[in-house]
């Protein structure tokens, strides 16, 4: 009888092992484990055995049953995994088709640079001033130490509306409003970005409308070296680390001393390239110490305080940063151009 058990076991295990489908396996399950299956038959045969052999035989059959059902379960798992695979394979997609087209809009490059500057200076404790573009001569010129008939006021440069009103020619007008508003109270620490206008024919490098961002700091011990440190910090943020700043003497009516500020060329690291015309330096802005007369006419005592001011041309800075060769691009708003600026960079 024991031989028979072994025979059933080896036969069953082989059949299970060789079984190729769930259906077949189900039939094997019936054949061996079913109510009329081979194992049940063996159990039935136990009745004919002598009493003393029954327990041993029963145990063997139970072991056989366990082995077979375990084999079937194992096989079942293998088979169903394969069927899942097949079903999933049938669901295969072409992953090289593009994903859902998710258009992202853009912020105008001048506004990107403006925000970058704002964030930079706000982080250094500056506030952001605002003021009108249709401005009084008083703020645009008089308070900025550019009296009537100063050559800097040539009619060719300014869009006048009437003798006292004009389109602001520089954001300095906002500085003057803020100085006046402060009523002699220190400190002042602000930037004033905005649109300005000059009588220029539009071409690749000139625009009758452009944007500036000026900065103004007035306090008790503000020095020219502070101006240099501040601009060096800003240049490193705007153009990447390792930038150096160079001052060259210049002239603006509202600052004394006045300087032109060069930054070491970010394209060649100061070695000389076509962008910096092989000088290693690029002129980026004008700056200086607030002219004592400007402080005086705005109600500050130049003996007791000093200040610095700087003015950045946003178009120039943006053109430099991205290598843009025509200023008109900013105002033509061709979407192909705008879509280039699809991130804060």
């Amino acid at each position, binding site marked *: 009888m024991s031989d028979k058990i072994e025979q059933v076991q080896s036969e069953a295990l082989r059949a299970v092992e060789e079984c190729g489908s769930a259906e077949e396996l189900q039939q094997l399950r019936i054949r061996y484990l079913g109510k009329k299956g081979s194992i049940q038959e063996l159990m039935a045969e136990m009745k004919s055995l002598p009493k003393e052999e029954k327990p041993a035989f029963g145990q063997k059959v139970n072991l056989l049953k366990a082995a077979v059902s375990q084999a079937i379960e194992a096989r079942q798992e293998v088979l169903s995994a394969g069927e899942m695979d097949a079903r999933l394979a049938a669901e295969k997609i072409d992953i090289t088709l593009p994903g859902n087209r998710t258009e992202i809009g853009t912020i105008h490059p001048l506004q990107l640079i403006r925000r970058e500057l704002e964030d930079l200076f706000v982080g250094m404790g500056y506030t952001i001033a605002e003021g009108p573009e249709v401005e009084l001569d008083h703020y645009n010129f008089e308070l900025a130490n550019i009296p009537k008939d100063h050559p800097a006021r040539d009619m060719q440069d300014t869009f006048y509306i009437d003798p006292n009103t004009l389109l602001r020619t520089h954001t300095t007008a906002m500085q003057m409003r803020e100085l006046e508003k402060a009523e002699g109270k220190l400190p002042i620490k602000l930037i004033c970005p905005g649109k300005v206008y000059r009588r220029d024919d539009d071409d690749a490098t000139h625009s009758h409308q452009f944007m500036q961002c000026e900065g103004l700091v007035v306090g008790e011990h503000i020095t020219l070296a502070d101006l240099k440190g*501040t601009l060096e910090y800003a240049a490193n943020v705007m153009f990447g680390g390792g930038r150096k700043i160079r001052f060259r003497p210049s002239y603006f009516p509202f600052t004394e001393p006045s300087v032109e500020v060069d930054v070491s060329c970010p394209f060649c690291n100061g070695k000389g390239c076509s962008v910096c015309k092989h000088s290693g330096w690029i002129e980026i802005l004008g700056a200086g110490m607030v002219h004592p007369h400007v402080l005086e006419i705005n109600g500050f005592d130049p003996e007791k305080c000093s200040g610095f001011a700087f003015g950045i041309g946003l178009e120039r800075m943006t053109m430099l940063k991205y290598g843009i060769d025509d200023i008109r691009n900013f105002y033509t708003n061709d979407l192909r151009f705008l879509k280039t600026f699809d991130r804060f960079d």
Partner: protein
Amino acid sequence: MKLSYKWLSEYVDLHDITPEELADRMTTAGLEVEGIEKAASGTNLVIGEVLECWDHPDSDHLHVTKTKIGPNPEDVTQIVCGAPNCRAGLKVITALPGSELPVGKIGAKPVRGQESNGMLCSLSELGVPKSWQSEYQLAGIEELPADAPVGETNVIGYLGLDDTILDVSLTPNRADCSSMWNMAKEVGAILDRKVTWPDYEGCADKGTPTDFKVSLATDKCSCFYGKVVNHVEVGPSPEWLVRCLHAAGMNSINNVVDISNFVMLETGQPLHYYNLAKLPAHEITVVDDRDMKMTALDGVEFDIQKGDLLITTGGEATGIAGIMGGEESMIDENTTAIFIEAASFNPVSVRRTSIRLNLLTEAAQRFTKGVEPLGMHKAVDRSVQLLEKYCNASGFEETVVAGCENYTPVTVTETLSHCNALLGTAFTMEQVKDVLRRLDFAPEVNGDEIISHIPSYRTDIERQADIDEEVIRLIGFDSLGSTLPMMEATVGMKTPAQKMRDTTRDIMSGFALHEIVTYTLVSDDYIRSAYQPVGEAVELAMPMSEARRFVRTSLMNSVLECLQYNEAHQNVNNNVFEISTVYGKGIEGERLAVALDGKIADDPLHHTVKEGDFYALKGILCAWLERLGYSGSRIQVKENRTDTEHFHPYRSAELWLDKNLLGVFGEVHPAYAKKFDLKRTAYAEIDLKPVFGGRTSKIHYAPLDRYPSVSRDIALVVRTEVTAKEILDVVRKFGKKLVRSSEIFDVYEGEHVEKGYKSVALRIIYAAGDHTLKEEEIAGAHGAIVDNLRKALNAELRS
């Protein structure tokens, strides 16, 4: 300013500094050199003599020459020359084979079969500017003097053209440097070298008594020096003088006129010499009260108005003061006696007159920038000295002076501590004093104080800050450290409005819109057809063009123009926004424009295509306002009763925030869109003042529902005119507190729905915060809603 290196070296020793080095030093000190050009250049040149010259056999204009190029008999070579003035006996500039000229490299090769070993040159071929040459010189090769040494190889030196011209850009405060003498002082200060001016002082002190009278009938002429010279001999100028004028960009006329210009270039003081015989009287009056016509030196007639400074003599106008002399009293070859004028005219007056008459002469430009107080005296002294030497001048009468207050030298007192405090430096007194010494400021040190005695020509130095600037620019900015301000802490923060402006840009770009920036100045047409102008348009007094005459009162036309441009350039889905101020007389507004021209989602592959229509725009605007902090109940979309000129009357609406009309949005009226070649375009222009200035709703936390919600759909058929709002209002009103949300998810008109009716499907979510809803509760609320939809809207329930 054109600065001749050679001329400059007459005053300052430059033997060990090249023009390029000089340019660097000047630029570093604030006198920016924008260009460096040699007056002439060329290698392998020699002075030659044409021995024989015959016509080229195969040309109608070429000559073949035998040219002697050295002292020995064998130094003769054959050169073909095309110049019409080429002839035997001429001394010429010869470029030998291998010579490099600005026009190219010269070789030895046959010209039309005739051997040619080099080139006979014109000055232009050596790079000499055309303005330095006569018509005759420009027409042919240069004709050297008969005594020119054949074989001389330093040809450029022989010609006196061994000079380099620096193009210096002077800032307005340094007009003093447009005088060669003052420029020499500046260069001397930069290089720390001695500067020697010609010994001219007192040359005009001599003179016999004069009957010439000068009077000033206006305070706009503060000083006038006049001097009669009874004898001069007009003739050509010496070569050195011509070269100096050329280098400065001026032409040579005759020795007398040239000296007036030369002295102006030296001293910075404009001069005018009159032909004494042509002055109707021995009298000059400076006036500014005439209204008349007058013919100036260049033969053109000008309109003189009251306020223009005028030189009159015997009541007649003889010159536009400080700008140009009259034709009548011009110096010509027949002039034998002159009257010298050196005066100080009001810069503002000269500037106004010269701009109005478009006469920006050298003199006018100098007066506009202001002349130095001692300039007149210097110029008259120097004039007399040079006229005597180069024009055989004699018969001087004593100098007539009108006005001219005594000059008081300016002194400025600065302290070392103040200077260092402003600059953020640690300069020593020695360093500061050294700079001021180099500048000829004759510094006097007194403890911490340093007193500067400012030379008369440095009219830009008035106060301490000016001294500080001189110190830093001459010691050099390299000595300046980098620090950050040490001051009271300040809070850097954007205002709520500034933050909202940033957020608006982020939201709009997040909706796939592209920000544009368009011009503020627009045409009359754009103003007349403006959408909701903020006020009466501000007009420029002198626009540059009709297209840019007004400050815009609204953004719509500019934005539509931008769409038109983009369509014309084959760009599709041009969805844009702009944030900008707008202006009217006495009023400023700020607006947001949004324009959808095309699809807002365009992905046919994945079946997501969405037109940029009214609903797309409405979705963007409402989401934007909610995101800024305005809860949905404060935002209202109402029927458009404001503007059907620019907007489609049935596909547009008003957008309200609380009690403020923000603007109209919707489809642009097809008739208006056509103006910009646009088809279906959705547009919104929103007043930002109430948005950026409004009180935003705070974020409100409510505990999440703990009990399940139940969703019920209703399908209705209503008349087409019934609005979504009317339906949802009924749901809200009768659903009591159990309705958590309700939305319309389908609207259908067409087949299976009677004409004039539409089918509307809505979904209502019911829930209660404190228990699981019972079926009866839901049925009650739902039933009430359905009943009232029937009653109020005549709605028919579909199964």
